[in-house]
């Protein structure tokens, strides 16, 4: 008797508190986030846990591996390929972030001014970003393949001797970065343009009343206003560059002599080329950890102000 009463009253209070939770709106954030959380659990959390486990086994794509402890991580960190891929990932990220930011900012400043045909330019400059990578990079390869390709014809016009862009380690690195900048700057331009347009005009009016030159207006009004979004953009672009597979893969497949192999390509080579899922997963995890450190660092900078 009493047991039944007890459970009924418990159920009653549970329902009542649930109703209260719902009515006060405290439940709302949970409900709003529920669809995203479910998706993330299925698509990210589950593979992440299995991948984490694979990193400690010697499995191949079809065979369950045995537990091998930290062997994969030790093999990875002591390998020359890894150190080189880490170095290239870093160079790739730094040059691309700086390059596409500078280009994007310059064009955003230009487009922020009164120009005839501005809407057209705004979209025309987005094209490198709109075109699928597999398409644009094929076109780039055509322009630099050998002595008869467009770039070398232009160099020839000025009397230079042909440059073999994809055969030389240094040039290949330069071209991979250049093409990545080319593919990334429109996003920077777009975001910075949006930020420029939201700057309060009265700030500029006040500055010109104080007799500030254009350069000083840029330095002391525009740049501080752009600081926050710039850090955010650098952060996003760093993540995207470190995780970029398309650009180096489609242009050079990581060559020549592995010069343009970043950590993602290395993970891909280990997993699908060498059929070593353990080593591939370990590579991916190390990449993730390095990215986390970078992001925490950049977020700190964002908060200092």
């Amino acid at each position, binding site marked *: 008797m009493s047991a039944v009463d007890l459970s009924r009253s418990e159920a009653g209070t549970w329902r009542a508190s649930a109703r209260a939770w719902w009515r006060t709106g405290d439940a709302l954030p949970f409900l709003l986030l529920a669809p995203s959380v479910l998706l993330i659990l299925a698509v990210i959390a589950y593979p992440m846990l299995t991948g984490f486990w694979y990193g400690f086994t*010697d499995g*191949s*794509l*079809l*065979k*369950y591996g*045995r537990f091998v402890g930290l062997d994969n991580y030790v093999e990875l960190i002591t390998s020359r390929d890894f150190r080189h891929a880490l170095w290239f990932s870093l160079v790739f990220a730094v040059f691309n972030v700086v390059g596409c930011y500078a280009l994007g900012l310059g064009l955003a400043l230009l487009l922020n001014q009164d120009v005839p045909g501005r809407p057209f330019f705004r979209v025309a400059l987005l094209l490198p970003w709109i075109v699928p990578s597999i398409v644009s990079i094929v076109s780039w*390869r055509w322009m630099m*393949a*050998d*002595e*008869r390709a467009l770039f070398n014809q232009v160099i020839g016009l000025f009397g230079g001797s042909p440059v*073999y*862009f*994809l*055969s*030389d380690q240094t040039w*290949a690195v330069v071209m991979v970065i250049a093409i990545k900048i080319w593919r990334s700057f429109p996003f920077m331009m777009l975001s910075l343009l949006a930020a420029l347009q939201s700057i309060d005009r009265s700030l500029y009016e006040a500055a010109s009343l104080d007799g500030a030159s254009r350069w000083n207006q840029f330095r002391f009004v525009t740049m501080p206003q752009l600081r926050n979004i710039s850090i955010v953009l650098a952060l996003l672009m760093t993540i995207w560059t470190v995780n970029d597979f398309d650009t180096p893969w489609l242009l*050079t*497949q990581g*060559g*020549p*002599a*592995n010069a343009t192999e970043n950590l993602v390509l290395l993970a891909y*080579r280990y997993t*699908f*080329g*060498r*059929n070593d899922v353990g080593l591939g997963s370990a590579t991916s995890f190390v990449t993730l950890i390095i990215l986390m450190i970078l992001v925490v660092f950049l977020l700190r900078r964002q908060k200092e102000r």
Partner: protein
Amino acid sequence: MKTSGNAPARGRAGLLASLAAALAIGLSPVAAYAADPVKLNFWDMIWGPPEYIDAAKELVAEFNKENPGIQVEYRSIPWNNWYQTYVTAISAGTAPDLSTGAGYQAVQLYDLGAIRPIDDLIEEMKTSGDLDDFLPGTVDTLRYDDHYVALPWGIDIRVWFYRKDMLDAAGLKVPTTWAELREAAKATTKDGKFGILASGDTGGSHFLYNAILNNGGGLFTEDRKLDLKSERNVEAFEALAGMVADGSVSPASTGYNSDDRRGAFNRGQGAFTLDGPGLISQAGDAADKIGVVPPLAGPHGDKGTIFWVNNIMVYEQTKHPEEVKTFLKWWSKNQTPLWTKGNTGQLPTRKSIAANDYFKQQASRGYVLENYVPIGKTTATHAAGIFPALNEVEGEGVMQTFAQELWQGKPLDQILDTADSRLKSIVKE
């Protein structure tokens, strides 16, 4: 190599496959109609120009008409990421019933427990005498672990091609030895053109295989140990490095992929290149300016080149092994249109197909069939048969990197050491 101490575990993949099968039988109401024709999935790589797919589809339709009890579904698989395609399909239990595949796919997938050997079919063909129709060596190349893991259908091979116009202009005869090739390459390197066009992709590594096999060398010893630095191999690599040092190899080679290299060759930017027998028929207007170099003699008089026996394999996941066998037998016998209509770049493995007029009209293919195929060797040389590590050796791209650095003109002993230690770490020696 993965430790072979583990039993050829079918582990998770097998479990999932049976789980999926159980689910399919339990849930599918369609399974109740026993009279429905058996459905087979046949995955075929794209072995030639667009008309190849049409020819293959037509052939499958013909089979379906002749065999109302079996319905084969044809699907063409792009080369791009093909390995990933198969491995993910197998691990998810959606492998086809049978597929074609390049050189070592069958052994490697067999080693993972995904391939059903065709010993019974080979036995049948032996009894009926059909097996004698295959060119010598082709069937046995696909023997691994005492089983026949696949049935040969096509031969892929690398041969040297030359530009008739460039050799004529330089007043040169077609080379017959490696020494003459080197001389001719040097003589044709002028006016912004080069003697040799190579590439830095998989096709680039074929230059290396060709050179060592031509010189009686090989990647492996008879007991499957790595043997990259053998005397004959080093001699062959030195021959290539010598041509690079002469300046005869186009500096664009490292960055070329095979498509670029072929394009440059067809445009006459270089005098020699190494490619598959289909090159001339794909060369468009340049076709009549291109010839096949006869098998070259190495410094010790050896001849040889790299070849692969491409094949058709049956998957362990199939539920209809008998029907698969019926189709496989039929396909193997009736595949002539893949050449006559489909223009595949492969060479046939059957004498009866090789005797077709097509190979008399396509003189270069006929020539290769007659003169190069008999001296073809696999990358497994000097070990017998093929084995799974071969796929990893090719897939990992060590030889590709080796080729890139060789064309760059880096010191041979240095890049040889790097390649050797990297290969050893792959095969875990």
